[in-house]
C-alpha cells in the first residue's frame, strides 16, 4: 500500500507535468506532513507555492484578467 503522502506527492508531480500548478500545490500541501525533512520535496513544494502566488498576483495586476462582478439585487 502506498501511504497518503506518497499518493499526494505522486499526484503533485503528475500535476506539475500537466502544468496544473494549483492542483500540484494542493497535493504538495497534502503530502507535506509526510516529507517534512525531505529537502528536495520542500524545494518543489515551495517553488510551486511561489509560482502559484506569482500567477495569482499577475492575475490581479493584468488588466485583461480582471473579472467584473456585478451584484444583482432582486426586490420583492
Amino acid at each position, binding site marked *: *500500500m*502506498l501511504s497518503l503522502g*506518497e*499518493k499526494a*506527492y*505522486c*499526484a503533485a*508531480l*503528475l500535476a*506539475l*507535468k500537466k*502544468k496544473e*500548478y494549483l492542483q500540484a500545490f494542493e497535493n504538495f500541501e497534502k503530502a507535506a506532513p509526510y*516529507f517534512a*525533512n*525531505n*529537502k*528536495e*520535496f520542500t524545494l*518543489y513544494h515551495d*517553488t*510551486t507555492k*511561489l*509560482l502559484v502566488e*506569482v*500567477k495569482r*498576483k*499577475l492575475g490581479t*495586476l*493584468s488588466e485583461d484578467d480582471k473579472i467584473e462582478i456585478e451584484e444583482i439585487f432582486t426586490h420583492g
Partner: protein
Amino acid sequence: MSQTASLQSLESLLETFLDRVVFLKEKKLNVLDGINRLDDIGAMVNSGTDVTDDIGNWFAEHNKWLSDRTLKDTELNRITGMLSKIKREIKIDADSSMAHQKISSEIDRWNSKKEHTAPIIKLKRPPETVTPEPVLTPNSDTISLFVKRLSKMTALFMDYSNSKNHILSVLEDLLQKASTETSKDALILSAFIIYYLKQNGYKVEPYVRKLKEAETLYKKGMF
C-alpha cells in the same frame, strides 16, 4: 522593469525550473504513477468492484517494465506484493471466469519473473552445538566485496568533504543524498560518521533520527 514584467520574468523562471524537475524525474514518475494506479486497483478490489478491465489495462501498459528491466528491486517487490494481494482478494479458482484466470496467470508470470530477476538470498548457518565451533577460514568474496564498498565510500567521502569546513556539513549532505537518491553508500557512510562522532562526544540524536528516516526511504526505494 515594471512590477508586472518582474513577476512575469519570475513566473517564467519558476516554470522552467519545475519543467526541468519533471523532466529529470520522468522515469521515476512513470514508475511511481504505475505503482499508484495498481494500488488504487487493489483498493477497488477491497471494495468489491470488478477490476478485470482495469488490471487488464494495467498489464497491457506496464508489461514492458519486465522486459526492459527498468524497475529497481524494491519497486518490483512492491508491485509483486500488490499483485499477490489482488490475486488473494479476487479468489481465483477453477470456476472463475476466463478473464479472472487470465489475470491470475499474468500475476503468476510477474511473480515468476520477479523471482528470476531478483533472487532471494537466504543466509543459513549450521545448528548450534555444544562442541567448539571449527575455526572458519575467511571468505575472500565477502572481504573483497567489503574492500570495494569501503573504497567507494572513501571516494564518496572525499567528494563530499571537498570545500567543507566541518564533518557535520559532510554528514548533512550525505544524509540528504541517502534520502533523496536512496544511496546505500551514503546511508552506510552516514551511519559510520555518526558512530565516529558519538565516540568523540558529539550529540548525534538529530542525525540518528535523520538516518532512520533515510533508511525508511531507502527501504521503500521511492523518491
